[in-house]
């Protein structure tokens, strides 16, 4: 079971769109895939029409591993299941901070589904918290969407600095450019700058696209209804690159 986190410490960068479409691409290429919606805003679930689980409004969520497995919902797409967001995730950070050795909690929670899935994709909340740190520790890869602007560039550098300070493996970080507008020369310049500074930046980048924006209308992964559009197909290409 490979654990791939989609993480950004800045909101509105196309993180959920990436999680949803990467999970779809993974399932389509034959992997039994679980998408965990860890973002309290619960947008991943919204895109799959899956309601937040009523049963799981409990702080002991990650403690009770059986409950975790029971909360998983099958999506409308073959090979793709979803762990819908739970409002108690908001309190999850607080809950974790109270616990000793809390950093191993997420790993423990994922134990019961190990073997059922080939790929687990985590749609992470956009902050640096105990939950995020948990993810930094257990994920095999951390995909970081970056809009090529100076502000996003700064946030990415902050993330690298945080990893270094905390002793996490920054080799897990794989930035990819998101919502790219080729007509903007600043985007192209910053992309070049970031690539020059970091070796692991993905070759594939996701263009800004109304087809992706319309995911909220379709309530389905863009790849499932507009897979032939160049901007949308970039997710499939990105997934191929991640798998290599």
């Amino acid at each position: 079971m490979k654990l791939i986190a989609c993480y950004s410490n800045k909101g509105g960068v196309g993180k959920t769109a990436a999680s949803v479409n990467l999970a779809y691409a993974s399932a389509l290429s034959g992997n039994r895939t679980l998408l965990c919606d860890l973002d309290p805003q619960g947008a991943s679930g919204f895109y799959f029409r899956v309601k937040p689980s009523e049963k799981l409004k409990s702080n002991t969520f990650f403690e009770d591993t059986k409950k975790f497995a029971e909360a998983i919902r099958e999506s409308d797409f073959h090979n793709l299941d979803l762990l819908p967001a739970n409002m108690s995730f908001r309190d999850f950070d607080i809950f974790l901070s109270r616990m000793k050795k809390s950093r191993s909690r997420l790993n423990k929670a994922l134990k019961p589904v190990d073997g059922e899935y080939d790929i687990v994709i985590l749609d992470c909340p956009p902050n640096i918290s105990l939950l995020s740190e948990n993810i930094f520790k257990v994920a095999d890869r951390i995909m970081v969407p970056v809009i090529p602007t100076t502000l996003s560039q700064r946030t990415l550098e902050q993330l690298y600095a945080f990893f270094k300070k905390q002793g996490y493996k920054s080799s897990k970080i794989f930035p990819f450019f998101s919502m790219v507008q080729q007509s903007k020369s600043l985007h192209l310049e910053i992309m070049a700058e970031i690539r020059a500074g970091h070796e692991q930046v993905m070759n594939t980048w996701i263009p800004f696209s109304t087809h992706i924006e319309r995911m909220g209308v379709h309530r389905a992964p863009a790849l499932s209804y507009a897979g032939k559009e160049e901007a949308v197909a970039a997710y499939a290409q990105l997934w191929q690159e991640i798998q290599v």
Partner: protein
Amino acid sequence: MNLPSPQIFMLPAGINVKKINDILKDENITLAGNTCEPEEGTILDNFDAAVYNSGALLIQAESGLIRVCWSGDLTVQAAPESEWRFARDLPQGPVRDLLLNLSALRAFMPAGQVTIIRDTLSVLDDEQKTCCRVESITLSRGKKVWSWLMTRPMRGYSDSHALICGVLEKMEKAGLPADVLKLRISDYTSKPDIHLSENAPARTTLCTIVQSFLQVTRRNEPGLIDDIDTEFLHQWRVSLRKVRSVLTLFKGVVATETLDQLKQDFRDIMQDTNMMRDRDVYLLSRDDYFALVPPHAHPGLELLFELLQQDRDEAFGKVTAMLTSKAYKKQIKSIQKLFENPQDLPKGPKADAPSKVFAADLVLKRYKKVCKLAGTITEKTPDETIHELRIQCKKLRYLIESAQPLFDDKQVKSLLKTLKGLQDHLGSFNDQSVQQATLAQCLDRYPGTGPNAKALAESIGALTAMLYRKQLEERRMIIENLSQLYNPETQGAFKALFDLKRIAANPNPETGEQDKNQVDSYGDKNL
């Protein structure tokens, strides 16, 4: 994983989505079907209705070759592009695999035209999220409709699954498709249910058995004449052989003169079919033969098979001529008539013996005979004795099978199963011997010079060597498994079924140990 098991429903009048949604209106879920175009399909099955009797329907439509097992699952593969009759002719796929397992030798034939609608319905919640899928097949013939539904539960949505199952359960009215759709499914079986009564005179029992087997013979004639598949001839012959065996084995029931005449009749009737069956067996194993010899012998083997095919075609001509002749029809009808009324069958001294006692005695005597013969077999025994053992074992099996309805069915089946291993080896041993003889004949019958003759001779040589090697192996296996015949367990089983006097004296033997001690005498190879 929290996933309920799929459920199956059969509806007698199609799927009424509107009606189902009316029932579900307070539940926040709806059922949605797709607009599926109906297509024409053909129900396929073979002469012994192997598919239907396994609890399934095979339907060929443009969109696919479909197997619906009404208590199990739906299997689909792409519709074959070309005509096919045998499972082996189909392109690779899951339906082909199932059919090969079920009936590798029989041809599949149309059993009825149907209109088919295949759909996957979805149970949707108020966010239009699919919570459960329902696969469906609806078949119709005129006004008759039969629908089969199978739920595909989805993880995390057990409640929706339970709801839809509850609705479908109320609408269900189980009925098998042949009844609902009035399909013409063949009722043929090579093993008819024979009802015998224990105390009836042996002559009555014999007549019942012979009549049943002769019916099997007659039912195979049309398919044999139309050359639908090789099983028609095979089962035609087996049924006649069974008749012949049971007549001989029920010693003293029929008057000697009548018996001799009947034996002669059967010899005459079957004579022409020997060559055809022999060549059928060869042609069916074509691929195995090619695998047996090295590739350089393959061109020669091609020639050999061309010759065998010619033989077969010629033999088939003779057999159909015989079967369609007035003489045959008259002869077989008069044989059937002879057994219609037991009183009319000229009787022998044992004709009035009570059937069960009579049959049990016959089985025990024959079993002793087989054990005695088996006891003499060693590494040095000539092949002829092994052949004799095969014949004796076969007679024993035919006898037990014929008398089966008089005894405990389960026990008889288990006994026959015990003997099967050894009998299979005996059968293969004989096949390889017959096949070597056929090859030798081929060599004699097709003399010639030139490259073809050389290739043919080489392939026959290579094949004979391989068959001989296999035959030696079978011989070794026969000797190794001989004890299956006379070990204490088999003896105990024979005694428990057929030693009626002992059963009457001791109806419930307390332990198997006691049983074994009592039958020890059979273990003595000098029996």
